[in-house]
């Protein structure tokens, strides 16, 4: 109910169209249900009195009625289309605005494909409802009321008998909604299962073949295919049963009409004209039944689609500008994490007690396995996420958040906090104040978000580029940048030579319909993009790479150019980069386990030195590789 009424609220913003199309639908219907009366008049008044010219008059009257019906129906449809399009336009814009405002956690929680479907397919489903839904229900009800009223004026007795069609129609609409749709939904979801099994097998065909698993996979496909066949067939069987049932019910009513009509005719209470008129009117009653069962289905679909779509609008954006934002200017690049905790929406802590202080211009290398929290850590700086603002206590080596209402949940038991302590089993645990992340000594949450983010550059190993020209991509962060600035950045990123080798140089469009770029080329364009934006703080996610050695060498050079004079956080696998960092931070399970310079960490003999020596050993299996002079390189593209 809720979602469709919200959709209606949108529709009511275009009140004129909304009322217009409903009025047109009702008026049109009125003209339509009047047509049988012309038949009645011709048969009962014109023919017995043999007035030839009245035949023409009544035929023209009939023509007038169907013409008016056509005109109003057309107007109603057009206005409904206008209204539906208006609503869809508004809704899509709202959705887009809302998507742009979401924090990154939202994008982590929702897959791209699903979000896209919510904004496209689901919106289309709602458009169908906007266009048809209200109209079919209005027309259905108007036709039913109108038809019975006219019947009543012709013959109250026959009308009374024909009232039986109302419960039958209601029953049909109900059965249709409950017996048929669910099976279609089931078949639909089985279709999804079948599709994903097929897709998986095609993409993994090499593996299937190399493990000689073809027979097994064939059976699996057959099982899902058969399941789909059975469900779809059952859905179609029910449809085949119920769909022709509706005209049959009305046909049977017509049969009854013949009998009752004949009976009444013999009593002299019925004329031929009224009888023929009734035949036509009963035929008209089939329309509401059809429309209403259709409308119910559309309502169900629109409601489900609405739920998915409004989810985006309802999802509260957690990261907002403070009330009096500070405009960050002349950033120096000092970054401090002070006892920072982080969790997704108050769940388990992903980062715990992170304390890290970085001076302007320092390079910090972050190390750690998947899920160690290094990515979460760097995302706190540009406020893609915010630090946990709850206080925490540490109990038996684990950290727990203290909720706003002052309770801590440990296992299944709830403990209350008072005066900054939580007492558990007689022992008092002090509540640690929530931590913070600050840039140049000021909490990032006090800055204007746009300014903060503009002073931070990010380069990912697999960067996202837009389907636009190379120049637009490089100047993405500063669209007003001159072509000279763009070229200079491209040169420093060692991608200039490649760009000028393209047919249209800097105007070449990249992406699906344009120039396809290799991973290494993309990365260097992203480096150029960051250079143009000229941020004081850099975040480099260079954790994976699938490029050949030459490219890698170029990327490394480009990165070195980029990192110069900037505070840099880098996630990397390159031991050379790690060794040269001012600070190496080893992370495990959301905590910093070791930090220091390369030499310090080697000396302390912890995890870093263990990994370092294992990898070194493996490389040293290569006999006597002596230091050669400067490594060869170049900017071939």
């Amino acid at each position, binding site marked *: 109910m809720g979602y469709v009424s919200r959709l209606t609220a949108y529709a009511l913003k275009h009140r004129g169209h909304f009322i217009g199309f409903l009025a047109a639908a009702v008026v049109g219907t009125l003209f339509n249900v009047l047509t049988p009366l012309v038949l009645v008049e011709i048969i009962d008044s014109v023919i017995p009195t043999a007035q030839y010219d009245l035949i023409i008059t009544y035929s023209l009257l009939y023509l007038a009625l169907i013409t008016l019906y056509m005109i109003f129906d057309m107007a109603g449809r057009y206005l409904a289309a206008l209204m539906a399009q208006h609503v869809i336009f508004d809704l899509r814009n709202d959705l887009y605005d809302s998507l742009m405002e979401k924090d990154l956690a939202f994008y982590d929680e929702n897959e791209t494909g699903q979000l896209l479907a919510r904004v496209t397919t689901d919106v289309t489903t709602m458009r169908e409802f906007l266009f048809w839904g209200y109209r079919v229900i209005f027309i259905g009800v108007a036709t039913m009321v109108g038809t019975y009223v006219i019947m009543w004026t012709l013959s109250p007795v026959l009308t009374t008998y024909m009232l039986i069609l109302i419960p039958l129609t209601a029953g049909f609409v109900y059965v249709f909604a409950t017996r048929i749709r669910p099976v279609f939904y089931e078949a639909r979801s089985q279709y999804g299962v079948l599709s994903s099994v097929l897709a998986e097998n095609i993409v993994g065909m090499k593996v299937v073949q190399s493990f000689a698993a073809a027979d097994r*996979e064939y059976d699996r496909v057959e099982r899902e295919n058969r399941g789909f066949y059975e469900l779809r067939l059952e859905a179609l069987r029910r449809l085949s049963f119920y769909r022709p049932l509706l005209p049959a019910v009305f046909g049977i009513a017509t049969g009854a009409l013949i009998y009752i009509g004949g009976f009444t005719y013999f009593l002299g209470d019925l004329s031929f004209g009224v009888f023929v008129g009734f035949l036509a009117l009963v035929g008209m009653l089939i329309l509401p039944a059809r429309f209403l069962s259709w409308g119910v289905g559309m309502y169900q679909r629109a409601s489900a689609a609405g739920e998915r779509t409004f989810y985006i609008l309802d999802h509260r954006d957690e990261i907002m500008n403070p009330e009096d934002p500070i405009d960050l200017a002349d950033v120096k690049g000092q970054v401090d994490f002070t006892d920072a905790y982080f969790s997704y929406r108050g769940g388990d802590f992903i980062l715990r007690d992170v304390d890290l202080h970085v001076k302007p211009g320092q390079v910090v290398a972050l190390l750690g396995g998947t899920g160690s929290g290094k990515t979460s850590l760097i995302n706190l700086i540009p406020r893609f996420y915010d630090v946990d603002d709850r206080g925490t206590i540490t109990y038996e080596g684990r950290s727990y958040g203290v909720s706003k209402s002052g309770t801590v949940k440990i296992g299944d038991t709830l403990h209350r906090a008072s005066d900054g302590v939580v007492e558990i089993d007689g022992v008092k645990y002090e509540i640690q104040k929530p931590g913070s992340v600050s840039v140049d000594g000021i909490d990032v949450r006090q800055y204007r978000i746009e300014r903060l983010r503009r002073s931070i550059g990010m380069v990912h190993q697999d960067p996202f580029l837009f389907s636009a020209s190379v120049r637009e991509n490089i100047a993405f962060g500063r669209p007003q940048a001159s072509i000279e600035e763009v070229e200079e950045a491209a040169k420093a990123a060692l991608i200039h030579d490649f760009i000028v080798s393209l047919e249209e140089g800097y105007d070449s469009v990249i992406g699906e319909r344009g120039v396809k770029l290799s991973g290494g080329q993309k990365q260097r364009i992203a480096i150029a993009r960051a250079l143009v934006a000229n941020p004081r703080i850099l975040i480099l996610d260079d954790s994976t790479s699938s490029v050949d050695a030459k490219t890698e060498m170029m990327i490394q050079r480009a990165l070195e150019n980029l990192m110069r004079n900037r505070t840099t956080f880098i996630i990397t696998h390159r*031991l050379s980069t790690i060794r040269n960092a001012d600070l190496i931070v080893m992370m495990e399970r959301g905590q910093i386990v070791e930090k220091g310079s390369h030499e310090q960490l080697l000396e302390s003999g912890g995890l870093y030195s263990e990994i370092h020596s294992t990898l070194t050993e493996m490389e040293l299996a290569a006999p006597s590789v002596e230091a050669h002079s400067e490594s060869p390189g170049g900017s071939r593209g």
Partner: protein
Amino acid sequence: MSGQMVADEEERTYAYSDSTLMKRMVAYLLAYRILFLAVSLLVVVGIVVSIWMPFVLQHAIDVDFPSGSLEAVLFTASFYVFLQVVAWLSAYGNEYLMALMGQKAIYRIRQELYQHLQTMDQAFYDKSSSGRIISRLINDVDRMSELLSGGLISTFAQIFIVFGIGAVIFTVDVQLAFVTLGVVPILLVSTIYFRKELREAYRRTRKTISSVTSNLAESISGARVTKSFARERRSIAVFTELNRADYQSNVDAGKAMAAFFPVIRFISGLGVVLILLFGGSRLIDGTVTLGTVVLFIQFSDRFFRPILMIANFYTSVQGAFAGGERVFTVLDSRPTIIDRPSAADMPTLQGHIQFKDVTFGYLEETPVLEKFNLEIQPGETIALVGDTGAGKTTVVSILNRFYEIWDGAIKIDGIDIRDVTQESLRSRIGLVLQDPFLFMGTVADNIRYGRPDATDDEIVQATETIGARRLIENLEDDFETEVGERGSRLSEGERQLVSFARALLANPKVLVLDEATSSIDVYTEYAIQRGMKRLLEGRTSIVIAHRLSTIVNADRIVVIENGKIVETGTHTELMAKKGKYFSLYELQLRPRAMQPSIETEM
């Protein structure tokens, strides 16, 4: 989702004529001859009944009512009800049987297509993107569904109804028949006209909606970048423009769509006006009965739906043809690699491999390998080294017989690989791909993939040997962790380790490993290095190597350039030679650090 994909779905290549396509689709239905007969019979019953009904009404008005006999009226009324029930049951019967036939056919087509795809060789998969092939199996097959499970036969039934009514009404009254049929041509012409208009309008809306969709897709995928450069306002402005264009094209299309149905129905109503005009005067003259006029009014209403259906048929048939054409194209393509009739199963291997004068290329007249010779002893580890495109991957692909060589022979333990079945050959050779593919299911399911009967202990054992036990323990549900679609819930390094365990458990004598170029975080990297070493132990292994440590640890390094072996030997030997390997090493492999030696990357 892009505009291209939308266009692609509509395109026809006309590799098959319409009649060929129709014949082939119908052939699938005709496989169920008895069902087909039953459907035809029921369709005839349905047509007869539906033409009969108005005559019953005519009889009631013209004969029973004037007769004054309540019995006669009761009989006619009961007969009418009887006809309605027959109509319902025959409709139920024939619609269900058509669905049965059609769904059986769809099931079979999909199954045949999948089976066929399993036999296709790698060259086929190289040519067409997997996305397209998947679309054949899923969307294109489904496009035929509607036509096969009802659309085709009921459209023919509608044509028969139009002709049937057309013929029958002439026997009743010639003048009124002409009058009634008079609107049919107008109905047809305007339906066709509107269809064309609508298609045009629809095409325009598809263009604008695909711009909206691709902009959305890009905005969602690129949200992180947009945010990090704080460019939201501009993106919103761009989107609003595209959205407005879509609004406009839909509103334009709305005009044609609003007119279509009401106009068609109006024309159908014109028929009634004409019947009233002519029939009315003749009623006064007494040259026609009231029942007959009612009969004609009833019939004139029955042309309307069939003609709409026939008009719609064109659209649905176009969709089915487009889908059918692509499905049949795949079904008709022959695999180039077929087991010989005499092919036996590959026996258990010792692991001796010989490439003898092998020539092969992907494109005609452009050999990638020429007179390629290489002999590998059982248990030996070979590192293939060379530039991208030198032919390393080709060597291992033809060993698996993913492609057929042009000339020469490849022998394993002295048996030509073309003399054994492909399935047995591949099951004896372990293959570890650079970007490991995992199947939906648990970690354990995936490790077990090559040996479904392996026990849990064996799985644990394999994982321990590979050195991935700790990594898997750290996963959410240990071995029962769901890996997600294509293993997406695991990290790249975790996928690699799982694929090592999978290969180890299958325990092949010959192992082909395409070493991943990407290196993960230092943690996983080190687990992978160790795992690989264990995996290669005691097997004949060919490794397409990217890491120095792998190359150095190999028994023999084979340097390939332009499809030829230019050097072989150990690291030390080759370095001393100062040939191709030496320069490769200088340029690519040598650790490029400020300090000597250590570098994880090549």
